[in-house]
């Protein structure tokens, strides 16, 4: 049996100049992925948001004041040697970096809740289930059967809606194909964004928009060749698969957590 081994590297580019901070991506994500919620979500230490929109400002007084919203899914890091920070600390192989798709998986039934991965993740992209999910009356019937629900005591995070890839592949197999078209596998947040700020696709495929937008340099751990593109905390070497784009210099500098006096050239 010969199986196509062409490696894919699914990734995302988020145009921060388009993002309005409306939060549609967060809503779409929660309903797509059976993310549990509580009546009172004010305590952000125990609420779960696979993608979360952060608000940052340039700290300047009027009229120079400016702000920016940064949606943050899981970055699906490749690391320097093919390991995300969370993957290398997991004692149970509950999280793994799939080399054939570039998606960092989380197997809830394997996880025993030590939360090392949460400590290791520099993006706070991982969340712990302190309780079993409690759905409002009747809502269990509306849960998606394509994403397994989580239980108390395990960590969960964004999966790049990988179930959509599985289902799209099923359709492809039935139609006698082995390759997906770009639009066949898109994450829920990508499709929900009313501003079209999120672009999703295969970073290894030069025909995909996301590749054209960021022009990742695979020889240098995927650093973007597009000068307007950047990754969060690039200097940590997480080699993330989520890129951001902005025309605004302060946003790009902030993305790498640079101190005001630090030269942006330093990071190269």
């Amino acid at each position, binding site marked *: *049996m010969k199986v196509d081994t062409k490696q894919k590297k699914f990734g995302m580019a988020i145009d921060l100049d388009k993002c309005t901070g409306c939060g549609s991506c967060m809503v779409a994500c929660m309903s797509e992925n059976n993310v549990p919620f509580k009546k009172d979500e004010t305590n952000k230490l125990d609420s779960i948001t696979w993608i979360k929109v952060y608000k940052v400002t340039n700290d300047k007084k009027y009229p120079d004041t400016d702000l920016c919203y940064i949606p943050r899914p899981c970055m699906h890091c490749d690391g320097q040697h093919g390991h995300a920070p969370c993957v290398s600390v997991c004692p149970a192989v509950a999280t793994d970096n799939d080399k054939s798709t570039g998606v960092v998986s989380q197997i809830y039934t394997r996880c025993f809740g030590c939360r090392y991965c949460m400590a290791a993740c520099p993006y706070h992209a991982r969340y712990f289930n302190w309780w079993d999910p409690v759905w409002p009356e009747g809502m269990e019937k509306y849960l998606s059967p394509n994403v397994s629900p989580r239980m108390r005591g395990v960590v969960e995070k964004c999966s790049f809606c*990988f179930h959509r890839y599985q289902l799209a592949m099923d359709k492809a197999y039935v139609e006698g194909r082995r390759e997906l078209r770009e639009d066949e596998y898109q994450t829920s947040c990508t499709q929900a964004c009313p501003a079209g700020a999120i672009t999703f696709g295969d970073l290894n495929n030069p025909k995909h928009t996301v590749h054209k937008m960021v022009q990742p340099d695979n020889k240098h751990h995927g650093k973007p060749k597009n000068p307007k593109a950047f990754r969060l905390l690039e200097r940590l070497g997480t080699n993330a698969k989520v890129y951001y784009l902005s025309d605004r210099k302060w946003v790009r500098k902030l993305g790498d957590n640079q101190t005001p006096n630090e030269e942006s050239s330093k990071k190269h």
Partner: protein
Amino acid sequence: MSTIDDKATEVPEDAAGESAETVPPEQEKEEVAEKKEINKGLVIFVFIAAFVASLIVGWILFPMVLYTQENQPIDFNHALHLEEVENSCESCHFFREDGSYAGVPKLAQCVDCHDEVMGDDPDELAFVENYVQKNIEVPWLIYSQQSDCVFFSHAAHVKAAKMDCVSCHGDIGESTSLKVYEKNIITGISRDIWGKNIGGIKLHSWDRMKMNDCAKCHKEETGNQGACFQCHK
């Protein structure tokens, strides 16, 4: 020459030396030896008896307690129906256009023929009276049902890899009646997943469908066990 050997003999010698201090006179020593012999025999006997007992408990009684037996709501005769339908298995088990697998058939696929009782089979009577006429779906028990966290793709195996149903499901497709469904009382999962043979011996490729069974075939067929997210969701 060998320090290891020396050490090995050293230890018992030491032990013997220590006990030598408390050794009783010659005669008593023999008695003790005899007693020891009896004790030894007893110990071995008890050991074997307990061993056999635990084997019986572990291999026969425990599985009996661990699994409850449930009958399907009605019996179904595959062999009989295969002669009636036009499209073999696909008449009832087909792929939807979106690539998903319809799996166990819904009532809609039966009513064309079964809107009325055709013969005098009690199962057909029960089927028509209790389900067709009341328009209730039959709550079939699914032998091969995996747990929630597993993603399985019939399209990949049946369409892409051109595998036949028998290699994973056995002869259900040609059977004349449905077998008893056995459910694990702890996990609620069908016994077909973990297999009948508690010793782990697999005579047929469909005897068991645990993670390792999937992975073993993937390794053989595709050269790669697959990533976690291939089979999990």
